């Protein structure tokens, strides 16, 4: 063998070595799913890893649907989801040999936002339905300026998209001219630049943005409009817990099996007062203390 062929052989061996799996940490937990829960999930992971140096928790987003799909493909240990798992997904998971186990990990108020230049202060669920299904097309129909409404929504892999479709659109179809945005912050960015824009998403993402306004939502014509944020700029926990604010939801975590070992201790920690404190710090609503 001359030098050249030796080199090629060496290169091949090195490539093969590089492709081989590298080492594992002692307790490796992967978490994937809801974009709404990415920041929350990462904060949880950071705090948990500080307290348990053995543990390694990896959190990525992609959308609730993505997380649940990953759970049944076996590529994640925990799926974050901002909507409950669907019957069809449970059936698919069982086919693949998984038995999804549900944990309610936090509470979230879904805020409806408009551009700060828009005078509209409150809106009813029925009007929201009309706007997002394409029957109400001008802000003057809901007490605003004469300006066309530009609808922004999330991608269909988002739990927020599905939750909103079920609870606000009553399972109707979104209007075709709904502009789908890849994430809650993309919705915030779009609405902050469009005077006629309307969007929705986890309240925590919008509270600090001064170019947006979170508007109050009425359950029906008789009830009072409720804002998910109190006058002092903090989230109204009580309105979400009691259901006074009509579009609040649980944030879920799903595991492929009944949690045990490292995964169980992680979930137990999340449900403990310490984990719930992180929920508050990030801007979501903790579970109501039993």
């Amino acid at each position: 063998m001359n030098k050249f062929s030796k080199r090629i052989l060496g290169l091949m061996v090195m490539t093969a070595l590089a492709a081989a799996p590298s080492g594992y940490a002692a307790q490796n937990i992967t978490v994937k799913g809801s974009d709404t829960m990415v920041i929350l999930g990462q904060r949880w992971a950071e705090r948990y890893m500080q307290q348990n140096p053995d543990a390694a928790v990896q959190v990525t987003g992609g959308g609730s649907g993505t997380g649940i799909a990953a759970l049944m493909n076996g590529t994640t240990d925990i799926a974050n989801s901002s909507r409950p798992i669907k019957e069809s997904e449970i059936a698919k998971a069982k086919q693949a040999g998984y038995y999804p186990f549900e944990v309610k990990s936090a509470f979230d108020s879904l805020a409806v936002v408009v551009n700060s230049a828009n005078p509209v202060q409150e809106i009813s669920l029925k009007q929201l339905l009309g706007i997002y299904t394409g029957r109400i097309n001008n802000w003057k129909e809901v007490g605003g300026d004469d300006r066309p409404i530009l609808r922004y929504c999330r991608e269909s892999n988002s739990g927020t998209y599905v939750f909103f479709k079920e609870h606000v659109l009553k399972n109707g179809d979104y209007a075709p001219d709904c502009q789908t945005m890849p994430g809650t912050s993309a919705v915030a960015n779009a609405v902050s630049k469009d005077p006629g824009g309307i969007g929705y998403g986890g309240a925590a993402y919008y509270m600090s943005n001064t170019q947006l306004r979170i508007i109050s939502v009425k359950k029906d014509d008789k009830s009072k409009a409720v804002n998910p944020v109190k006058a002092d700029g903090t989230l109204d926990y009580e309105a979400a817990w009691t259901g006074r604010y009509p579009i609040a939801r649980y944030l879920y975590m799903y595991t492929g099996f009944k949690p045990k070992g490292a995964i169980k201790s992680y979930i137990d920690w999340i449900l403990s007062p310490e984990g719930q404190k992180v929920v508050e710090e990030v801007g979501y609503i903790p579970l109501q203390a039993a």
Partner: protein
Amino acid sequence: MDKASLSNDCAKVSQNAPGRASDSSGEQVSRIKHALTRKESSFSERFVEKILWFAGVSSVLIIALIFIFLFKEAVLFFKTGHPFHLVGLWQYDDWEGKNVFKMMWQSVSEVPKYSLLPLLCGSFLVALPATLISSVIGIGCAVYLSEIASPKVREILKPTLELLAGIPSVVIGFFMLMVAASLIQNVLHTKFRLNAFVGALGVSLVILPIVITITEDALRAVPKELRDASYALGATKWQTIWETVLPAAVSGISAAVILGFGRALGETMIVVMATGNAALVTGNIFSSVRTMTATIAAELGAVAHHSEHYYALFLVGAVLFGLTFILNIISELILNRMRQSLRM
């Protein structure tokens, strides 16, 4: 290694030896050594040849595999879905109070709707204007580069163009989303801030280098004799370019445009970010649109494997692949014809 032929060679060397008077045994050894190393190198040559052959064939293999994989999954859509649903479906609308024909892409729904029309509309509303813009600028630029520019200017312009080709499309998309979209809305007062036109502008930046490079190649392939003949007949530089060089290179230029169009259809990141992604059936270039590529990119990550939605996305991919494949073949045929006609 081939031992038989090697020993054969050695035998030849030793047979030759008696014929020469001055042959010493030391020289014989060195000859045999030489023969050995020659054999060795021809072995490594064959080895490298094999590797290169594999590299060459792999692209064909990869395309064939993708083709099979894509279409195998795509046809499974028709197991549950009706072909007519790719156009639209009748559904009762409680607002209208009657059945309405819905041409919608609404994949997550109680009655999922997989009409390809809004996606085709979207893809073409982005790709056609993008191709138009980059053709006008690109052909102009190529004519300047190949016919008019002095070598010094070329030296600066060519690397700059290569730099343009090197910009990641996500960067262009981000720029269109954050800066250009608002600028365009302020000037044109469009209803949608993010629309097909904004996407088309971004995509035209991506395909501009393609159009320029291939057009310039086509112009350079025009024989010098043609230009000389034109000048000899008293034509000016402009007349030569317009009436001699461009017509001679027209097939190459059209291949460049078609190839650019195919690339525009396939562009993903920019259209995800800059077109607003509303699946509308429309001909309005200032309306928000959703392209085939954006749909696949946005939805494939979340879809349950082997569901109808999953197969529908593969079907969209197959349509897209088929379109770009046909476009590429057409441009390849045109280029081949041009090369043959110019060689005469």
